[in-house]
Each structure stands twice: as structure tokens, then as C-alpha cells.
């Protein structure tokens, strides 16, 4: 009986996951209740999404905070310079009686001026000291390099980028197909409604490479939903130049230049620095392994993206008893200072050993 019900329930769940609205299609109360519950469970937030968006917002908040600080510092500096200027004449409020000179007020005023000056100096120093950090955050937003390539030992050749100097970054969408030559660069917002030579937009690259397709053109890596061709130049979509899609130069896709797909994944060494762990929550034991007193080392192959997040986690050395899953679960939450090549953050593949020991 339960097997039949389990099968019927699964069929209803399949329909729900395929996008169907919840509608009670059965007279069996038990099955109807369970399907209704399943319909609600579809709207649960995944832990990965919550953590990833949280980390992105943290970065955005830090940038806004730095901007606020620099505006404030500039304002305070302006006020200070204004009041110290030799020709400065304070505004005359003739209708008000002159305040009597008070030593306490004078002391308070002096202390406030000293505090403001100290604030200006320290915020200036802070900005200088954190210049790399600030630049790193901005670069990491632009240098995300996970298009579709597998890890390689050297940088993938090719790539491209474009845009039409919009103030907003390029919107999310799919890149057009590859062709041997490009007659029309891709675009999100069509500026010329009536071109002299209408042709399908393409990227230059091997036509054998098939890219995902959708009706919405854009940069596959973007998170921006409002329509924009991007901040780059020379046509195309993205922050790069010359008719491609992404942050590179040329009519291809991704970082790099000259067409094709750019930006693969590096290995550490040969001018590529190692990533450094910044946040390392410890893995938990699985109940099964704890009961069996099972311990050892799980080895994972992980790509550390230019934004410092681990991606494409694979188990190389398995321990079983639920410890592989626990290792993946923990490392997924780790955050890194990314690897660098030529001063820019790049994606690298590394191996991470996660030790499970019982004391």
C-alpha cells in the first residue's frame, strides 16, 4: 500500500517541481496533505544561496561604507580648511547678541577641532592602508572567470568583451552562437532599429562550441536584471572592448582577447600565487562515523574563484560514512583570499585535505 502511495506521491512531486501549481488532484486525504506539504517545501531557501548572497551583500556594504567614509572625510576636510583660511570672515548674525567669551567653550571648541583633524588624518590613513583591499573587492566583481572551461595548466587563450559605455553593468543573459566571422556584435539594447545589413549577432570562435541559448541576450556571469549593454566600449555586451561578451578585448567570450573563450582555471605556481584561507569553519562528524569511531582524511579538489569562494568541489579521496558530505559541506562555507597572477585575482584549482580525528 505504502509503495503505491509513495509512487503516486512522487508523481505529484515531479509535477510540482516541473513548475505546476499545487492543485489537489486526489481524493485520498493522506496523499493530498503530503502533496500540499511538498508544495510548500519548494520555497525553502538553500543554505548555499543564503551564504553566497550574504557574502555578496557584505562586500557591497563594505564598499558603500568606504564611500560614505571618504565623502565624510572630504566634507570634514573641507570644513576644516574653510575655517582655517586666513581671509575667512565668519557670517555676521547682527540680530543676535554677541556671546560672552567663556574659557570652557573655548576649550571645548579647541578639542572638537583637534578631534576633527584627527578624524581627517586617520580616515586618510585608513584609505591609503586599505587601498589594495578596496581595489581587490572591485576587481573581484569584474574578474569572475567561470564561463564553461575545465581547469587547465595554463591560461585559456581567447576571450572578448564589449559594451556601449552604459552606467550600469551588462545584464544577465546568454551569449550568441560562435561563428568564423562576426557581422553583427551581440547587444541587449538595440540602438539601431533599422540596420542597413541585418545579420544575426555572433561571437568569433569555433562554431563547434555550443553555448546555452535563451531569448535574452546578455553576459552569462552578470547578476544585473535591468537591461544594459554594459560599461565597456566598441559594441557587444560587458565591461570589455570590441564587440564580444564579457570583460576581455575582442569578439569572443570572457577574459582575454582575440575571439574564442577566455579565462580558464589556473594551478598554483609559475607566477600564480596560492590562495589563503580567511574563514575556515570546522567540519562536523557524521553520526554514523562517530558511532563507528571512523576517522581519516578526505581530499577534495576545489576551484577557488577570483571572488575567494570555493566552487566545483569534487571528492578525490573518500572516507565514506557521511564524512565526504560533511567535508564538502564545510569547505563550501570557507572563504579565501584568491590566488593572483600579474596582480589580478584568478581562479585556481587546489586540493584541500579535511582531517576527521576522534580524540
Amino acid at each position, binding site marked *: 500500500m505504502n509503495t503505491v502511495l509513495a509512487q503516486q*506521491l512522487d508523481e505529484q512531486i515531479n509535477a510540482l517541481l516541473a513548475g505546476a501549481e499545487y492543485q489537489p488532484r486526489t481524493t485520498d486525504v493522506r496523499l493530498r496533505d503530503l502533496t500540499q506539504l511538498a508544495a510548500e517545501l519548494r520555497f*525553502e531557501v538553500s543554505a548555499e544561496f543564503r551564504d553566497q548572497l550574504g557574502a555578496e551583500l557584505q562586500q*557591497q*556594504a563594505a564598499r558603500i561604507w568606504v564611500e*560614505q567614509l571618504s565623502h565624510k572625510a572630504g566634507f570634514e576636510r573641507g570644513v576644516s580648511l574653510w575655517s582655517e583660511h586666513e581671509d575667512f570672515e565668519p557670517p555676521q548674525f547682527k540680530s543676535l547678541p554677541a556671546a560672552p567669551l567663556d574659557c570652557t567653550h573655548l576649550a571645548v571648541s579647541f578639542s572638537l577641532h583637534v578631534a576633527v583633524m584627527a578624524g581627517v588624518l586617520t580616515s586618510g590613513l585608513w584609505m591609503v592602508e586599505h587601498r589594495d583591499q578596496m581595489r581587490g573587492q572591485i576587481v573581484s566583481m569584474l574578474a569572475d572567470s567561470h564561463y564553461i572551461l575545465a581547469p587547465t595548466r595554463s591560461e585559456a587563450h581567447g576571450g572578448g568583451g564589449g559594451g556601449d559605455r552604459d552606467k550600469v553593468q551588462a545584464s544577465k543573459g546568454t551569449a550568441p552562437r560562435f561563428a568564423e566571422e562576426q557581422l553583427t556584435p551581440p547587444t541587449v539594447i538595440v540602438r539601431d532599429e533599422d540596420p542597413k545589413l541585418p545579420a544575426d549577432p555572433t561571437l568569433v570562435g569555433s562554431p563547434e562550441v555550443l553555448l546555452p541559448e535563451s531569448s535574452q541576450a546578455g553576459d552569462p556571469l552578470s547578476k544585473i536584471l535591468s537591461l544594459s549593454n554594459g560599461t565597456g566600449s566598441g559594441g557587444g555586451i560587458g565591461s570589455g572592448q570590441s564587440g564580444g561578451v564579457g570583460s576581455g578585448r575582442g569578439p569572443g567570450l570572457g577574459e582575454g582577447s582575440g575571439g574564442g573563450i577566455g579565462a580558464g582555471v589556473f594551478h598554483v605556481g609559475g607566477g600564480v600565487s596560492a590562495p589563503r584561507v580567511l574563514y575556515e569553519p570546522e567540519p562536523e562528524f*557524521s553520526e554514523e562515523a562517530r558511532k563507528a569511531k571512523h576517522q581519516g582524511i578526505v581530499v577534495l579538489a576545489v576551484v577557488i574563484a577570483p571572488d575567494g569562494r570555493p566552487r566545483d568541489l569534487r571528492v578525490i579521496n573518500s572516507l565514506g560514512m557521511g564524512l565526504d558530505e560533511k567535508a564538502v559541506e564545510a569547505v563550501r562555507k570557507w572563504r579565501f583570499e584568491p590566488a593572483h597572477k600579474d596582480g589580478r585575482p584568478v581562479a585556481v584549482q587546489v586540493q584541500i585535505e579535511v582531517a576527521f580525528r576522534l580524540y
Partner: protein
Amino acid sequence: MKIAGPEALEREQIEAAQRDPRQFGVLYENNLRAVFSYVARRLPSRQEAEDVTAEVFHQALAGLQTFCWEGRPFVAWLLGIAAHLIAKRWQQIGRSTVVAEEIDVEGHGLDAERQAMYAQLVERLPEDQRRVIERRFVYQQSIREIAQELGRSEGAVKQLQFRALENLRNQVRRPS
């Protein structure tokens, strides 16, 4: 004068985040579930729902200085941004008619509370049942994929799914 109550607390959290945007995390954690639930019920895929939810919070953080407290919960503002983005999304994919809707903040507050309760109940399930539920509904994997991952037969995974949902239903029905 110290004002007590959730409204006053939320107002303090908003003002703190307006002074220092790094305090936005509390508002994000408190409202993520309600926003995602609202968006996911109106878009065809989970991926799209995540994209729009992310955009809602990015826009909210960027425009936080413009937010004025008018006695309505913060989530109402977020849902307003979400409704606008969803309408744009539908227009982009070719549905020119978008029906404007009145946002029922209280209703979505209840949705969020219910989602939070389900999340807690799922956490309390036996590990094999919890894994099946998470993989099936949060990551939307097929029974075959889950069976391969867990090293079980497809029939066994369907049974686990069935038992897990029954467990959850019994927990929901049980008086607190």
C-alpha cells in the same frame, strides 16, 4: 525613552544600517525567507527566484538611505521592490500584461513563519530522510540522482521521501 516591541527593534536595526551599511546583515537574515517565498511563488524556476531575490537585496542595500520609516514593516518595502522586479521579468520574457497586486504583508509574514517552521522540522528529521528532502526540494534533484548519490535504490528513496513527508505532516499537526 526606550521603546519596546518588534517594530521599535526593526526601526533601530534600519537606522543602524543606514548609519553603517555593514549592519544590513540583520535585516537580510530576518527578511530573506519572506522575500524568497514571495518571489518563488511568482516565478517559474528556482534559479530565477534566486536571481530576483538577490537583486531585491542588492537594490535595498544600495537604496537604504532613501528608506523612510512610515510605520510599515521593512519587509513591505522589500516586497515592493520584488513586485517591481518580477513585473519587469515577466515583461522581458514576453508577457506584456502584468497584473498589479496589492502586497499582503501580514500574509507573507505568515508564509515566512511557516517556512521557518518547516526548516526547523526538516532539521529534526532522521539524517537519511533529511538528506532526501533537502536534495529533492531545495536542490530539486531527481529521484535517480539522489539514489545514485546515496547509494540506494530508487524505490528506497521514494519510500524515504514518503516517510519524511509523513513525519513532517505529523509534526505540523502535533499541538505545540
